[in-house]
C-alpha cells in the first residue's frame, strides 16, 4: 500500500503531520509517539527573539473544543537553530521538518526565512494568529500586506518550500489564489478561529487578552468547508487541519482535496492520535480495495 504523498517537491512518507504549536519542538511528544511515524514534523512557531507568551489563564476546555491564548510563547530563532533543530535531526534524520515562523513586520519574516532556508524542508508562514497584538491576523486581512510578506519570504527561500497558513477569518476564495500568485508553494488551513469566553461571576472576559483561538472537533466542519473552497480556488497542494481526531476526520479532508492533514488539539488528550489516524487510514484503504492514498485525495464526488 502506497501512503507517500508529495507537497510540491517534498516527499512525505505518509500524509499525517502535527499542527504547529501543538507538539512543541518534539521532545515531549517523542515520549509518547515515535516521531518517525509522522509524514513530517511541524515545529512550534518561532519568532526572531524569544517570546514569553501571555499570562495565565491561557486555555479553557469548552464543549467540543479548546480555547487558547498562549500568545506564541517560543524559544526564539537562535535556540531553535542551535538546540531544537539539531535535537530533531540527530534522532530523526529522515523526518521532514517544517518551521512555522511568525513576526510583526515583513522584515522579521524575511530574516527568519533567510536563517531557516535549507535548515528545514519547509517554512510555514503564520499570518493569522489571533493571540498577539500586532502582525498576526493583520497580515491575513490586508491583501497587499499578505501578498508582500509572501513575496518577500519566497525570495529569501532558495531551498526550503514555502507553505502559507490561511486564516479562517478571511475569504479562502480570495486569499488562496492571492497566496499562489504571490509565491506560496503550498497552503495549510485552518488556523484557530477567533473566539471568546466570559467569566460570569467576575463579569470579565475569561482571557486577559479577551479573544482566544478555538480549536478542536467543534471547528472541523468549518475547516473541511474551507479546505474544499481552497481546493476549488487554487492548484496548490493543501494541508488540512482543524479538529481531526480520527481516521474518519482525516479522510474527510483528504477527500475534499487535502494532500496531507495535521493533528493538533487531539494530541492534548491523546498524544498517540497520529498513529491511530494513520492506522485507520490504512484500514480504510484496504477495505475499499485501494492501493494508493492518491486515489483518495480530492476524490470527492460533488
Amino acid at each position, binding site marked *: 500500500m502506497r501512503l507517500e504523498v508529495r507537497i510540491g517537491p517534498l516527499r512525505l512518507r505518509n500524509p499525517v503531520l502535527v499542527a504547529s504549536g*501543538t*507538539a*512543541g519542538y518534539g*521532545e*515531549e*511528544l517523542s*515520549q*509518547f509517539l515515535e516521531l518517525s511515524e509522522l509524514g513530517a514534523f511541524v515545529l512550534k512557531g518561532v519568532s526572531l527573539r524569544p517570546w*514569553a*507568551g*501571555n*499570562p*495565565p*489563564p*491561557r*486555555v*479553557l*476546555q469548552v464543549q*467540543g*473544543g*479548546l480555547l*487558547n491564548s*498562549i500568545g506564541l*510563547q517560543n524559544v526564539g530563532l537562535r535556540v531553535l537553530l542551535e538546540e531544537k533543530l539539531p535535537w530533531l535531526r540527530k534522532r530523526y534524520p529522515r523526518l521532514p521538518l517544517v518551521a512555522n515562523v511568525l513576526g510583526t513586520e515583513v522584515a522579521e519574516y524575511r530574516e527568519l526565512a533567510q536563517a531557516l532556508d535549507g535548515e528545514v524542508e519547509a517554512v510555514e508562514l503564520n499570518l493569522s494568529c489571533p493571540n498577539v497584538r500586532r502582525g498576526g491576523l493583520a497580515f491575513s486581512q490586508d491583501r497587499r500586506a499578505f501578498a508582500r510578506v509572501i513575496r518577500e519570504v519566497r525570495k529569501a527561500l532558495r531551498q526550503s518550500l514555502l507553505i502559507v497558513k490561511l486564516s479562517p477569518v478571511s475569504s479562502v476564495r480570495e486569499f488562496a489564489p492571492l497566496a499562489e500568485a504571490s509565491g506560496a508553494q503550498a497552503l495549510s488551513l485552518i488556523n484557530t478561529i477567533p473566539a471568546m469566553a466570559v467569566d460570569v461571576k467576575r463579569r470579565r472576559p475569561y482571557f486577559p487578552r479577551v479573544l482566544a483561538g478555538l480549536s*478542536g*472537533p467543534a471547528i472541523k466542519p468549518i475547516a473541511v468547508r474551507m479546505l474544499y473552497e481552497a481546493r476549488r480556488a487554487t492548484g496548490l497542494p493543501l494541508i488540512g487541519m482543524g479538529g481531526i*481526531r480520527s481516521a474518519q476526520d482525516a479522510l474527510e479532508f483528504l477527500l475534499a482535496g487535502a494532500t496531507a492533514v495535521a493533528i493538533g488539539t487531539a*494530541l*492534548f*488528550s*491523546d*498524544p498517540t492520535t497520529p498513529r491511530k489516524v494513520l492506522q485507520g487510514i490504512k484500514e480504510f484503504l484496504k477495505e475499499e480495495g485501494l492501493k494508493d492514498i492518491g486515489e483518495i485525495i480530492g476524490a470527492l464526488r460533488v
Partner: protein
Amino acid sequence: MPAEVVANRPLSGGHFLLSLRPKEAPQKALPGQFYMIGPQEGVHKKPFSLLRQRGRTLQFLLRRRGEFTAYLGSLPPGAVLELLGPLGRPYPAPPRHRHPLVLAGGVGIASLWSFLQRFGRRAVLLYGGRDRAELVLLSELRALVRKLLLATEDGSVGSKGTVVQLLEAFLKKEPPGGHILYACGPRGMLKALQGHEGWASFEAYMACGTGLCLGCALAHREGGFVRACREGPVFALGEVLLNEA
C-alpha cells in the same frame, strides 16, 4: 490507556475515592505525580493527583467541584475511563537529617499521600480544611505518620484556624532548621508558605498534562513562565510567583 472503574466510594465533604484498573499494567508512579483522566472518546481530560497505587489499581481522591468531577463521582463500577500518566515532576526525597513537615489543605492531601506512604514515619502532617467533613481518611493517615495535627476554620475538629496558622504555632515550639516543608493546597495557603524552605505542588488549569500545550503556565521568579505539568507540578517554595498567576 483505558481503565475500568473498580470502585467509587463517596466520602464526607463531597470527596470520593475513585479506584481504576488500567487495561495494561500501569507504570510505577513517584510521590506527587498525576494522571490525566477523561471519558473514553471524550475531547478533554483533566489532571488529578494519584493518591496511591495498589498492585494494578490506581486510587484517586477527588472532590466534587464542577461538572467534570461530578461526572467522575457518578461513575459505577464497570465504567471505563481513559488515563494518561503518570506525569509530572515528583516531590524530591527529604534529606536524611531533616524531618518532613507536611502541609495539606483540603483535597491537597491526595498529592501528598504517596509521599507520606514513603516518608510518613519521619513526618509531621498538618492537615486542614473548612470543617470536619473536609478532612478525610483520618484513621489511615494517623497510621502513616509520626504525628498528625488537624485544623479547621470552624473549629469542628483540631485547632480552629488554617493550616498556615497551625504551622506558625507548631514552629514556635520546635527548634528551627530541623524541618523541610512539603505542601499542597489552595493558592492562598501556598502563597503564605513561599518564604519557607521546602516543596509544594501547584495546581494549574491544564489541557494536556504532557508539556505540549503550554496552557498551565506559572510565572517563574527568574522571569518567563514554567509549565505546571512538566517543570512541576512540584516546585521549590518561592520558585513560582503566585501573585502574577
